[in-house]
């Protein structure tokens, strides 16, 4: 069994307030619990991790020191901003392993994530933490054995910096993430009238973009739950958001459908999107369809799903 709970579902920046009470205003944070083997995993340390920390202090700490692993999809701010507020790290005995990709030109993961804890940004310095924190850079990898029967595979998704999608498999249950990402596309000149047009490159570009999209679909094929980027509508995407690294909802649904995903959580909601709009979009995009066995919903803060 994998118990999944959403603690933050927003993209870009937290947006608390009366208009986002239903779906929540915290940025990305998802909790996975594996009760049979007593393992705890957190995906992303957006602002939602603060409430998760409070929950763990009340429910987990009395049972013993907190041991958890944090898998970062990437290191953009909305996915790491909650890290300094993850209170267990200030408690002696806590052990945290932080995994994530870093872009080649960047500093190591420890500096990128832990670097938020400098006096210029935050009143506590990394060196003052009581818990033990280890950092480990992740690359694209088809299979990482996490022990206790949990298998992880990672894939590069399409974002302006290196970002990873995660696929956790445990006793037949499959949980997948694919955010922050947008469909791969041909970046090369495709207009034969353009003086820099090169037929071979243009063709290869088309083929590669198509193949990379297939690689990603293959990655989440058959998932019991896929959490997919869905920040924009197709109309919004095509009007100024191409290249920002986020998906149109329509594409996310189509890709998940082709990959025979069982449940699709649309995720990373735009901070400008209020509850009423998300409710209306639920009517448009998530209505049950006789031919469509996939269950589709807009992820909501506090929502729990058991796989």
């Amino acid at each position, binding site marked *: 069994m994998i118990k999944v709970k959403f603690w933050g579902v927003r993209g870009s920046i937290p947006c608390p307030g009366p208009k986002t009470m239903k779906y929540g205003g915290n940025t990305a944070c998802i909790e996975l619990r594996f009760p049979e083997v007593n393992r705890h995993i957190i995906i992303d340390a957006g602002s939602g991790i603060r409430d998760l920390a409070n929950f763990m202090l009340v429910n987990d700490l009395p049972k013993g020191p907190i041991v958890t692993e944090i898998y970062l999809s990437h290191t953009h701010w909305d996915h790491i901003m909650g890290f300094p507020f993850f209170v267990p790290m200030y408690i002696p005995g806590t052990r945290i392993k932080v995994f994530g990709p870093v*872009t080649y030109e960047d500093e190591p993961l420890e*500096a990128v994530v832990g670097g938020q804890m400098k006096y210029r940004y935050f009143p506590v310095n990394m060196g003052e933490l009581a818990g033990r924190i280890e950092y480990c850079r992740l690359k694209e990898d088809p299979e990482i054995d996490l022990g206790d029967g949990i298998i992880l595979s990672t894939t590069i998704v399409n974002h302006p910096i290196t970002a990873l999608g995660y696929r956790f498999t445990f006793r037949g249950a499959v949980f997948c993430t694919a955010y922050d990402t947008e469909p791969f596309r041909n970046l090369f000149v495709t207009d034969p009238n353009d003086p820099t*047009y090169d037929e071979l490159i243009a063709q*290869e570009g088309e083929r*590669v973009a198509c193949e*990379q999209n297939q690689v990603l679909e293959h990655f989440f094929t058959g998932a019991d739950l896929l959490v997919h980027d869905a920040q924009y509508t197709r109309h919004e995407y095509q009007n100024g958001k191409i290249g920002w690294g986020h998906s149109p909802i329509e594409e996310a649904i189509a890709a998940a459908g082709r990959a025979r995903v069982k449940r699709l959580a649309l995720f990373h909601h735009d901070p400008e999107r209020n509850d009423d709009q998300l409710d209306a979009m639920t009517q448009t995009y998530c209505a049950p369809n006789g031919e469509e066995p996939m269950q589709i919903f807009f992820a909501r803060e506090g929502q729990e799903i058991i796989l």
Partner: protein
Amino acid sequence: MSERKTKLEKIRVFVDKMPSLSTTVSKVLEICSRPNTAPNDLNKVISLDPVLTGQVLKLINSAYYSLVNKVTSLTRAIIMLGLNTVKNLALSTAIIRSVGQVKKSKALPIKEFWAHSIGVGVMAKLLAVERGLPLAEREEYFVAGLLHDLGKIPFGDEYAEVLIHARTTREPLIHLEQRVMGIDHEEVGQMIASKWKLNAIITDAICHHHSPLLVIPEHQALVATVALADFYMCLFDIGYAGNRFPDEEQLAPLLEMCGLEWCAVANLAEAVDAEIKKAEIFLQI
């Protein structure tokens, strides 16, 4: 023939025998220096050189994947990882490969020499960041720093004596070179820069990093930044290029030309160590 003439002739012969900077590398330099490199241009310019293509793909595979040779085409690399990643890898690879082909210096321990050069390159780039320069201009600082001491390589056996003398007397190296050999590494650097047809600003960094006031105003900030990076590397003994004792009187004017405070420079210590470690990967190709 006078002694000076003989020495000059030897150096000239050495420079003549140095391999030229390949046309590909010059083109990669040119295309990558543009702020808005087009994907088509980048793909084509790298593809012109199969060895460079191989090295870039090898780096990409080692940097991003645990599967060997997964990314086998530049087109795929650019679509998957983005233009800037591929551009920066290609630029650094091309430059380091070119300088790596240069025949070894007789007097300077080559590994230490390149450690110094890489150090100055990464420091110059970090100082460019500190000065708030846009991303597109920073690579040029790295290249200028990396190449600034090229002129030391052709010196023969007698340079070893100059280096010992510099250590004992603490006299600035460039003065000693002139006094003992009648020519200094900036002049020799000029010969190499002209052979390699390096652009004017990089040439100025090679020829005037000990006297940045002599260059035209538009080049002064870059040349002074390279000089400041050089000062830092010599002062903190990072790598070795013969000059353990930088001219301390230079520091205040250099800081002024760069518009920086010394504490801002000194604060980069950790960052520069990390950057040097990363840059060293290029030397292992």
